[in-house]
Every structure is written in structure tokens, then in C-alpha cells.
């Protein structure tokens, strides 16, 4: 059926290489989304290089590849970069791109706030890295516990730059959250009731609520720390209350884990039904589970503090609430499996990454139960067991889901498919490398290797550390394949067409890449799988593909 194709504005060229003036000034949620994602991938590479330096330093006992002070700066920069500048930024970017498309909107509710929110991120990143050029960056771990970050023990500007950077980051996060919530509430297409929102959009609602609530306490902790450092107050100093800092930080810090993992849950909930050709199992319980997680995640922060010596009843409360998070997470897990059960599951690269996510995130979830148990945690806390656990959650969880999301939505964003062969190599090498790195890392913690140590003398840990280091380079190789794939396919990949996966949600109804206004005509929405409904009814309007083979 022939439809009149609206002329596309000249400034919105279909290639990625647009004039820089467009990138700098655009308020288009899609271009801003791309900028978020590209920024975060650059951070991922930088954070990865830090990780490799860490692994080289620890590969054998008593090595001296970097000195202890530099090592402490590197582990801090690795944590801050990966958590604040990679995962959180990436999920914000992908949501920026996809949420308006998925709800059938033309743009975000506040395009210029979106623009400002994005540009605060490079400011935040540059502020953080300024520390490296002014005599030493943050050297107290990404958590920056006081009093180690106080003036008495940390004279340099690194801590100040970090605190400023995190404040700016928190403001940006609050802007993005407000924007997402307003967009989703106000700009849904006709028929897109809340009960028909794609689960990725629900994930974004829950993430935004979480970040809105916990972003401010984080900024407050940083401001109080700066008062201590610059104005001589005594909030967290040796004379003050160092433990108060931990409460403030973890009240943000733990929900932040869910800020990073809930969008991953949303991604998985979108991808599994498409490739299993079955609707998501238990839509309502999926939504309820997300809000269960939002609520519970704000009542568990002190499980990071079981060794500071709290009252045992307080510890018991935080232990119980932490363990309860396993319930909504379990619901989601079983629902995903049930979605694929009896399906006709196509193991494309995104689906492989989703199954990689399920297989590895499960381990992170289970070790979380061990860590939640107060007596056991007193042994595992601050050891390599925790490092392994958190990487199973953030790498095996978030990063696998992010990679799945990239393989899934790359054709929509660029109009071209990522190369499948490279994708398969990418998946298998990262899966083997990841488990090789982090599975045996648990045993190091059990045997008494504390985290954040610059080096160690114990020869019993040497072999395990060597295996870990070798595996970590396999991850790096895999990420290199991924980057080659992205760059190569962006220019020369196979033309995807508008709907290469036979998707369920509205973004697949428009062209790849979508025009600036997203939809010529917003398709009717009759369920939470509007595009699938149209396809089955034979009503899917074939848009003229934007890209043609050249």
C-alpha cells in the first residue's frame, strides 16, 4: 500500500556523520540518546583499561606494575567510571532513544532539559578526570568512605573533583528522571494505557522514581563532605560521625544498583517475547515485581555496613529486607523462563546475550543471599567474594543485557544489522572470559583475600589470580570485537529494514532510523504488543525503507 512519504528535513541526514553543529544543539531525543550511548561506551573502554591495569598488577604476588597510590586511584576510577559514567549513562541513553518511540510520542516532554541533562554528563566526566592532572584523583574507592576522603588524610584536589563531579551527575540524573516520568505520563499515544506500556517503559518509570528519590541524598553527602573539606565542619571527620557518611552514601548506593539493573530487566522483558514468539508471561506480576524492587531497594542500604557494629535487631531488619528482594527478582526470573517455555525460540545474538544474562545474573542473585546473611557477610564483606558478586550483577547482569539491547536495537538506530558472525564470537568469548574471570574470584574471597589491596604476599592465591587475569584479557578481546562490529556495521552492515526481528512494540512500526518526528501516523494501540497486532491483522503499513543498499 502506497502512502505519501513526508519530506525529511534536510538537516536530519540519514548518515551518522552529521555536522557537529547539529550534534551540539539538537533537542531530538534520538540524537541525544545516541550521544549518551556513545559517551558511555567511551567510558566503558576507559574503565576497561583501568580494569586491565588492575588485573596485571594482581596477576602475581608482590608485583609492582603501578605503585600503591596510583593503584588506589585506578580502582576508584574504574568503579566510578563503570557505575556512574558507563552503565547508568548507557541505560539513560537507550531509554532516551526508545521510550518516546515505544509510547508513540514525538519527543521527550522537555527536549531542552534533555539537552542540558545530557551535556552535564561530559562536564561531570571531565570534572572527575581533572583529578588525574592536578596531583592525584580520588583514591578511596568509588564509595569514597570518610574519613579517608577528609582533608586530614587526603590533601589533593582529587576528592574535591570527584565530589563536584558526582553532584553534577546527580543533578543530570534528576533532570532525566523528571523528564522520563513526565514524558511517560503525558505523551503516550492514543490507546497506550498504562496497562499496555511496554515493560521497558515500566522499567524506566521505576528507575526514574528511584533515581529521583535517591539522587538528592547522594548530592547531600557530597556537599557535607565538601563542607568538611573546605569549611572545616566535622560531619564525617574522625571527631564527627564517619558512619553517617556510609548511611547517606548507601541510601543512594544500593538503589543505584537497581537504577542499573531495572532497565536491564526491561530490556530482557522486551527481547524474550520477540524471539520466543510468545507474549510476556505474567505482565502484571512483572510490573508489580519492579515496584516491589523499587520499594525494597530503599530499605536495604545498611547491608553494606554489617561490620561497623550496629544493633543486632537493626542488622536483622536489613538482612530480612535484603533477602526479600529475592522474591520479586525470582518472580521476574521465572516469568522470563515461562515466556520462553513452549515457545519457538530463535537464538539470535541478542537472545544469546539474554540467556547469558539469565545464566550469570542468577549467580549474582544467589551470592547476594549469602551476603545478606549477617553472620556470613562478616566473613565475605570487603573480600574478593563481593567483587565477584557485584560483577555477576553488574557485568553478568547489566552489561550482558546492554549488549543484548545493542544487538537488538542497533538496526533500528542505524538501519543496519550488526554482523552476526562477529556477534557470535563476541558472545562466546565474553561469556567464557567473564565466567573465567569472576567465577573463581569467589574462592579468593573465601580464602581471605580482601578487595582493594594493591598486592599480596600469599603464594596460594597466585594461580587463581593468574587465571583471572588471563580471562580478563579474553573479555577485553571480546569487547574489541564488539567495537569493530559496531564501527564496521554502522557504515557497511547489512540493511536491516524497518522490522528485522518482527518486534512487538511501536518503535518497529516506523522507519530505521526513525525520522525526527518519529511517526508519520502513530499506529493504533490495542494491546501491549501493538505492532504484532497490526502485523497479524495485516494492517502494518510498510514504510519505505530509509536506507537502500549502495
Amino acid at each position, binding site marked *: 500500500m502506497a502512502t505519501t512519504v513526508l519530506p525529511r528535513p534536510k538537516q536530519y541526514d540519514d548518515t551518522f556523520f552529521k555536522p557537529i553543529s547539529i550534534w551540539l544543539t539538537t533537542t531530538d531525543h534520538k540524537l541525544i540518546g545516541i550521544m549518551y550511548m556513545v559517551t558511555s561506551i567511551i567510558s566503558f573502554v576507559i574503565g576497561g583499561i583501568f580494569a586491565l591495569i588492575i588485573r596485571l598488577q594482581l596477576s602475581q604476588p608482590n608485583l609492582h606494575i603501578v605503585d600503591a597510590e596510583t593503584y588506589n586511584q585506578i580502582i576508584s576510577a574504574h568503579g566510578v567510571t563503570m557505575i556512574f559514567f558507563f552503565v547508568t549513562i548507557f541505560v539513560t541513553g537507550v531509554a532516551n532513544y526508545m521510550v518516546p518511540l515505544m509510547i508513540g510520542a514525538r519527543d521527550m516532554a522537555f527536549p531542552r532539559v534533555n539537552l542540558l541533562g545530557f551535556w552535564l554528563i561530559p562536564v561531570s566526566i571531565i570534572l572527575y578526570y581533572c583529578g588525574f592532572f592536578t596531583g592525584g584523583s580520588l583514591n578511596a574507592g568509588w564509595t569514597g568512605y570518610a574519613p579517608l576522603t577528609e582533608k586530614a*588524610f587526603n590533601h589533593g584536589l582529587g576528592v574535591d573533583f570527584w565530589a563536584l563531579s558526582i553532584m553534577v551527575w546527580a543533578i543530570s540524573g534528576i533532570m532525566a528522571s523528571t523528564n522520563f516520568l513526565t514524558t511517560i505520563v503525558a505523551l503516550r499515544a492514543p490507546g497506550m494505557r498504562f496497562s499496555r506500556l511496554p515493560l521497558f517503559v515500566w522499567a524506566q518509570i521505576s528507575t526514574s522514581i528511584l533515581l529521583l528519590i535517591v539522587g538528592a541524598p547522594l548530592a547531600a553527602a557530597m556537599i557535607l563532605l565538601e563542607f568538611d573539606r573546605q569549611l572545616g565542619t566535622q560531619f564525617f571527620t574522625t571527631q564527627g560521625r564517619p558512619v553517617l557518611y556510609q548511611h547517606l552514601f548507601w541510601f543512594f548506593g544500593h538503589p543505584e544498583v537497581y537504577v542499573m539493573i531495572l532497565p536491564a530487566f526491561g530490556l530482557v522483558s522486551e527481547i524474550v517475547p520477540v524471539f520466543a514468539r510468545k507474549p510476556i508471561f505474567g505482565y502484571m506480576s512483572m510490573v508489580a515485581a519492579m515496584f516491589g524492587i523499587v520499594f525494597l531497594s530503599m530499605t536495604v542500604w545498611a547491608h553494606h555496613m554489617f*561490620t561497623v557494629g550496629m544493633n543486632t535487631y537493626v542488622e536483622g531488619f536489613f538482612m530480612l529486607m535484603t533477602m526479600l528482594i529475592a522474591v520479586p527478582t525470582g*518472580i521476574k526470573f521465572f516469568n522470563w523462563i515461562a515466556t520462553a517455555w513452549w515457545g519457538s525460540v530463535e537464538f539470535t545474538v541478542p537472545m544469546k546475550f539474554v540467556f547469558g544474562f539469565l545464566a550469570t545474573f542468577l549467580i549474582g542473585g544467589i551470592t547476594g543471599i549469602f551476603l545478606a546473611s549477617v553472620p556470613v557477610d562478616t566473613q565475605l564483606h570487603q573480600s574478593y567474594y563481593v567483587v565477584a558478586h557485584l560483577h555477576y550483577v553488574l557485568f553478568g547482569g547489566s552489561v550482558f543485557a546492554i549488549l543484548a539491547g545493542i544487538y537488538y536495537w542497533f538496526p533500528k538506530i542505524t538501519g543496519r544489522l550488526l554482523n552476526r558472525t562477529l556477534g557470535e564470537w563476541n558472545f562466546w568469548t565474553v561469556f567464557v572470559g567473564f565466567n573465567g574471570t569472576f567465577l573463581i574470584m569467589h574462592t579468593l574471597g573465601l580464602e581471605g583475600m*580482601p578487595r582493594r589491596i594493591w598486592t599480596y604476599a600469599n603464594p596460594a592465591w597466585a594461580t587463581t589470580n593468574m587465571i583471572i587475569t588471563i580471562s580478563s584479557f579474553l573479555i577485553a578481546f571480546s569487547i574489541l570485537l564488539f567495537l569493530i562490529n559496531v564501527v564496521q556495521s554502522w557504515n557497511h552492515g547489512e540493511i536491516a529494514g524497518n522490522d528485522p526481528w518482527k518486534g512487538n512494540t511501536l518503535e518497529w512500526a516506523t522507519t530505521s532510523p526513525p525520522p525526527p518526528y518519529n511517526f508519520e501516523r502513530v499506529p493504533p494501540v490495542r494491546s501491549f504488543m501493538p505492532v504484532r497486532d497490526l502485523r497479524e491483522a495485516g494492517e502494518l503499513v510498510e514504510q519505505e525503507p530509509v536506507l537502500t543498499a549502495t
Partner: protein
Amino acid sequence: MRFLPPIYFHLVARSARALITTIGLAGLAFVLSSCDLGGLSPIFPEPVSPNGKDIYDTYFYISLVAIAVFVGVEASLLWVVIRYRRSRQPAGYVVPQVHGHAGLEIAWTLAPLIIVLAIAAYSFVELQKNFQPINNQEMTVKVSGHQFGWEYDYLNGVVVHQEGSLAAEVTPFVVPTNTLIKLQFDANDVIHSWWVPSISGKTDAVPGYDNFSWLKIDKPGKWRGECAELCGSGHAQMQIMMQAMDKADFDAWMAKQKAATTSPSPSPSPSPA
């Protein structure tokens, strides 16, 4: 909408068989891995203090549940990969459009709930038993952390200075065996954390904040530990050496220390503030 396709019973039988095989194999793997493989132990070192033993047991019992859950869920994922992949489905397979099932969803809400409540209850009992402040101790030692070492004050004038070092063995903190000892923690500068895995869990030494732990070691020996809270550039060298002696040996050691304290010490260890 069909909830149970006709191949259901056949599938259940096959999946049950696959599940049992997988659990058997994984169980075997676990038993094998429990044998000490050197550097790859799946559990803590054998503890020598009752509170450490309780932690060890708690870890072990949680492991049993955790391994069952792990094997069950991974097996069902594997089953989906093997059985429901598109290439394995017959041509013209009509995918049942199942939107959910209240009974199942309630079941897998309640099952994890019951499991975690049981684990939490068990852990809470342990918590009440071993983590309350004690006052029936036979001896008290004040442990104080600084950048980068530990002081052990026996409250009788004897103080062991354990300056951190990676190059040589550090001065041991000596205690008598079979004696209930209360440890009181403090720090002079930043937060440190005292951890000897063979004894028990770690305890943070927070400046200006009372914290405590206890130990009762059942055999003579030496055990290593480390500071577990990043405390600056010397964090890695903040090694701990713990030594337990028979009561008689300990008394002799203590007498020697007292004599050394009353006469001027030949090697005052520097303690940076």
C-alpha cells in the same frame, strides 16, 4: 488459549529426567570440588573459634539451598535452549499464546519467600547468639588500628605493636587457647577492618565508634589476616598475624612482655599518627 499443550505429559517426563541427571552431575561436581583443590576452596578455611564455626555452618547450609536453586534454574534455562529452540520445533509448530497463570505465579512468589524467610530466620538466630556484646569474657584486648598497623592493648600495660609489612612476617598478636577474649575496636585515623578468616568474620575499627568482637581459640597455632577496609596507600601491607598458645606458654610470654615493658624497650616501633 491452550495452557497445556497435548505434548505436556511427555515433556514433563523428559524434563524431569533431564533435571535429575543434571542435579546428579552437579552434586558430583560439588562433592569433588569440596575436596581441597588448593587455591580454589568453595568454603572458608576450617575455623578455630566457635563464632567462626557457626558462620561456617551457616554458609554451608545456605549453600545447600543455593546449589539446589542454582541447578534447578540453570537446568530449566538449558532445557529451554535445548528443547524450545526454533530448529528443534516441528514445522508448523503453533506457539501457545500463554499470557500467564495465576497459580504458577503465586507458587513462584511463595517458594522464594519461604526459602528466604527460612534463611533469614536461621541467620537471625546466629546473629543473636554470636554478635551480641558479651560481658562474661575472661580477658579483654583493645585492638586499635592506624595507618598502617595494629596495636593490641592487653589492658595490663602490655601493648603489642603490629606494624604492617608485606616483606616480612609481622609481630604476632598472642592469645591463650580456650579463653573467651573480648576484642574492643578503635581506630586513630581512618576506618580499618580486622579480619582473620580462620577465626571469624571481620570487625570494623571506626574512629570514635565502639565496636567489639570475641574469640575463643581451641588449639595452638598461627593464622594470617589482613585489614579489610581500604585505608590508604599502605592498606595491602596492613597484615595481621594471630598466634594462640597454651595457657602456660601464654603466661610465660606475658611475663616476658611485662619485663620488657618495665625496662626501656630496645626497639620502639614507630607509630605514625
